[in-house]
């Protein structure tokens, strides 16, 4: 179905919502108010782990203007099992008995004035018996500190059916992959390499913080939420309430960013429970600061070992990855498994062993964040791969090409690679960087270097998308789908697809904001799955409508191939401008589940996402300060539905990862987060951008994708971090193995290398 000439798909249409956004007219849930609503303010735990001995709400309740002060026990009275989560039902709506991370919601004040609610929330007094806490993922594996005494698998998702957790440990999921015989490869190897890499805890920083307004009355709940996954939120709230899903309505608008922070349930269950108790609409709107306590990106430790033969072929790889999931599993177990199986990198390695662990700790929960664990893995395997190339004296690109995974070969998970243009992506970067030409390495105290990183990701599978396409009697068209446009341009892409199939100009197409009473099921807007899955669903639904229009034309006696305008057709059929033609479709790709013991699957993913980055850096050897002179990002995104949107997705992803690489870091000292605000948690600004940045994609076709397309939202993140670390090594010969790469870390490494280590303080 790919290729061919298209009129709408493949063109750089401007974003449908662009004008409304830049003129300040776009609607966001954060700006929404409901008549007679109450504002909620959360009282949060100041400690990381402890038993709740008592909660004194008397002073808060006595404040004029306070309507309710609500604790976990109050929630339990109306919702007997008030736990939620996509993998485990481990997260209480408000803490019950125990708190498991600093910043955990313990009680809530409801007031008509948010300032009163805030002041009253500070007057709630909670008495804790503090318990020892565990913060490090490697320690958590063997620690005596147990975060959850009881583990309750959710059993919701097909790919997580086997989840059980391990009692009396902090292991939420252990994933193991065996491909070939890794031990034998290491015994046979000419060279063996081992390194350990770490990443830090970071946050998504959506500029519209998480927000939900709930209005529960009689047996209906309506929740307006800035969510990426309205269908899942409906499912989960209906489950908590014990109601049919038709009694729960979730509505979204444009999101002011999501990046994975707003998947699954975040503040919706709390808003729903509060409205249920208060019999009034309730608004739960987090501040930027509170988001740090809500969902984060997994810190990780990755020990990677390679067995290499005398010709520089990697014959075996062993990967042990520990994911710091924080106090509640959220979707961490899927990160552990889905990302886990690519931990050996985009290489054709016959013998691979992977052990990947999702661990509970007493940090704020970690979940999905643009790349879904892949950037943590690529950081390690591409740093490691570069070190091997350097030590063997082989050009880093030549070494990668010698070992690269190619179409027709099995990836470690046992799935034969198809439409995965690893080599072309790497070549694309090398070409743009003029890799084979001499490079100015600088002089004096300003030394230059360059490096690359190549990563890949499997799509989440199996997941379903449904769409409805309705053609109006005037020839205009409405697309109903639950894909959430959070800035990635999905509305525009879906409109382009409908336009292409129906031959209706895109200006006459409207894409409805998700509303679960109106738009049909979608698994969620995550993992760069929408273009592929919802793209197919919209394509099929539009095709269904087109077939019905053809049948109608035949019925009213229009000659086949007649190009009579659509309104004409409706008038002939209905006698006036009336009626609607509705097409619908469900889409689910093929999939075979992995074997639990070996992790092997013959069809683990409908498509592979591939991204590579090349970096040129300059290091000030007197300060360790880095300047990114050039950043080149090249991806395999199949054939783009909208080229300009794809390019901005690649640049946005790369810049986001640049922040995680260089500046962003949730600093935890003595069990406290010391920088929960943008004043001290530093996302990159304009002056942190590389001097030059190039973003592109290679010519490629995803044969099973809609119009040859596949996901493009994350691939730009993959290679950024190791490309920079590899470039630093090239420039000054030091290796940074822990993110973020600060100037001080580089300076310390330089001094270490000179044999003059800098004192600690």
């Amino acid at each position: 179905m790919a290729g061919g000439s298209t009129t709408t798909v493949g063109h750089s249409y401007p974003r449908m919502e662009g004008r409304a956004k830049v003129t300040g007219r776009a609607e966001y849930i954060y700006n929404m108010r409901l008549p007679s609503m109450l504002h909620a303010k959360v009282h949060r735990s100041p400690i990381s782990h402890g038993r709740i001995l008592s909660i004194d709400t008397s002073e808060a309740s006595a404040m004029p203007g306070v309507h309710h002060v609500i604790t976990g026990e109050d929630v339990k009275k109306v919702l007997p099992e008030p736990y939620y989560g996509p993998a485990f039902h481990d997260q209480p709506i408000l803490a019950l008995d125990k708190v498991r991370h600093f910043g955990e919601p313990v009680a809530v004040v409801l007031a008509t004035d948010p300032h009163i609610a805030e002041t009253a929330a500070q007057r709630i007094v909670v008495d804790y018996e503090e318990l020892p806490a565990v913060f490090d993922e490697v320690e958590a594996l063997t620690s005596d500190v147990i975060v959850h005494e009881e583990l309750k698998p959710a059993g919701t998702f097909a790919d997580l059916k086997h989840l059980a957790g391990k009692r009396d440990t902090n292991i939420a999921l252990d994933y193991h992959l065996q491909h070939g015989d890794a031990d034998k490869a290491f015994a046979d190897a000419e060279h063996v390499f081992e390194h350990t890499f770490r990443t830090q805890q970071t946050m998504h920083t959506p500029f519209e913080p998480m927000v939900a307004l709930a209005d529960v009355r009689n047996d209906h709940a309506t929740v307006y939420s800035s969510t990426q996954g309205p269908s899942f939120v409906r499912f989960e709230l209906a489950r908590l309430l014990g109601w049919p899903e038709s009694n729960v309505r979730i509505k979204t608008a444009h999101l002011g960013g999501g990046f994975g922070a707003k998947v699954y349930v975040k503040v919706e269950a709390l808003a729903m429970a509060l409205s249920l108790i208060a019999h009034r609409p309730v608004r739960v709107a987090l501040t930027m600061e509170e988001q740090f306590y809500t969902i984060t990106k997994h810190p990780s430790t990755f020990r990677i070992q390679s067995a290499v033969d005398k010709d520089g072929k990697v014959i075996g790889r062993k990967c042990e990855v520990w994911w710091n999931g924080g106090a509640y599993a959220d979707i961490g177990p899927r990160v552990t498994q889905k990302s886990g199986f690519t931990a050996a990198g985009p290489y054709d390695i016959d013998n691979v062993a992977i052990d990947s662990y999702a661990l509970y700790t007493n940090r704020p929960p970690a979940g999905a964040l643009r790349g879904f664990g892949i950037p943590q893995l690529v950081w390690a395997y591409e740093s490691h791969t570069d070190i091997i190339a350097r030590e063997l004296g082989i050009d880093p690109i030549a070494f990668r090409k010698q070992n690269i995974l190619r179409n027709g070969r099995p990836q470690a998970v046992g799935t034969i690679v198809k439409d995965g243009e690893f080599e072309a992506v790497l070549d694309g970067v090398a070409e743009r960087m003029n890799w084979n030409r001499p490079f100015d390495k600088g002089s004096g105290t300003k030394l230059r270097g360059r490096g690359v990183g190549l990563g890949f990701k499997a799509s989440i599978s199996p997941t379903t998308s449904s769409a409805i396409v309705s053609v109006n009697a005037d020839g205009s068209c409405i697309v109903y789908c639950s894909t959430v446009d959070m800035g990635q341009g999905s509305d525009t892409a879906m409109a382009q697809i409908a336009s292409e199939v129906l031959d209706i100009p895109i200006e006459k197409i409207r894409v409805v904001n998700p509303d679960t009473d109106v738009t049909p099921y979608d698994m969620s807007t995550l993992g760069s799955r929408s273009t592929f899955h919802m793209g197919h669903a919209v394509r099929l639904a539009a095709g269904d409508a087109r077939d019905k229009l053809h049948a109608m034309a035949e019925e009213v006696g229009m000659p086949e191939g007649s190009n009579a305008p659509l309104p004409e057709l409706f008038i002939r059929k209905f006698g006036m401008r009336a009626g609607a033609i509705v097409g619908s479709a469900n889409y689910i790709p093929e999939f075979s589940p992995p074997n639990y013991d070996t992790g092997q699957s013959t069809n683990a993913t409908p498509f592979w996402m591939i991204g590579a980055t090349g970096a040129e850096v300059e290091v000030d050897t007197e300060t360790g300060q880095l300047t990114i002179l050039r950043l080149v990002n090249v991806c395999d995104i199949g054939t783009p539905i909208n080229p300009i949107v794809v390019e901005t997705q690649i640049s946005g992803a790369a810049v986001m990862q640049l922040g995680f690489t260089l500046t962003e870091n949730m600093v935890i000292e003595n069990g406290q987060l010391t920088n929960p605000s943008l004043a001290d948690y530093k996302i990159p600004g304009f002056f942190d951008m590389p001097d030059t940045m190039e973003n592109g994609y290679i010519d490629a076709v995803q044969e099973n994708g809609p119009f040859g397309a596949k996901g493009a939202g994350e691939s730009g993140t993959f290679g950024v971090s190791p490309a920079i670390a590899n470039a630093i090594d090239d420039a000054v010969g030091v290796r940074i193995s822990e993110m973020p790469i600060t100037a001080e870390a580089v300076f310390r490494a330089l001094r270490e290398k000179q044999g003059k280590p800098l004192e600690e303080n």
Partner: protein
Amino acid sequence: MSPFELSEPQTLQDAVAMLDASDTGIRPIAGGTAVMLMMKTGIFQPDRLISLRGIESRYSEVSVDDAGDLHIGAMTPLRRLEKSEEAAQAAPVIRRALRRLSNVRVRNVATLGGHLAHGDPHLDLPPVLIALGARALIVGASGERVIEIEDLFRGYLETALAPDELIAEVVVPAQGTRRATYMKHTTRSADDWPALGIAVSLELNGDEVGSARVAIGAATDTPRRLKSVEAALAGKALADETMQAAGDAAAAEAEVHSDARGSAAYKRELIRVFTRRAVRQIMEMGTGGAV
């Protein structure tokens, strides 16, 4: 953030009259960029804010008097100061420092008076103004006084101002043939508050340093002069050894602590490097003629 009262006096005298030496719940607010951050984090919960926005417009102006001294009204937005040709003529280092101070949005509203009265050590202009030998005109209930900027800072968010005193104006004395530079260094994002600021002002006699004023900000508890560096420079030839000695003196004199922007050991190295570079930059200006 809790509700508070807002007063908007029309004169500086009225504003002073509204302040109360014994009530720390009453505070002046100028641009509000620092006050609002403190209120958001709950460090400061005012009962009443006295807005200086409505006071006489002459407190928002920049001018040069007959003696060549530069007068900057306390209510002058940093952006206006950055754009001021008078200021750029009198002391070009001010404009250069401002360009990298936070971002345009903050500079549009933040004022020089608020910048100095805030008493946060992590600000850019205090070391610059100290190196330039600037002074502040203070107005209080009991009258006016003048204080050297170098004497203004007493501790973290602590200044020599009484709660019922306002900064009315900052005066930068005519610089004659002195040349100055400012080195800002951030260790997190580029538009972060500085981890280190070094300001150096030198009087050059041919290839020799006449007198030197050197000030440090951000890395130390308060912005301050580094007198050992001044001594290491005064009367010395403008040569590599002099710059090296200045850097070493700075690293030895400045008392630094580890914090989120870096360890003390690292900051000492930064101080050494940037002091040396600052002196070098002035030397290069000297020969190149550009200021």
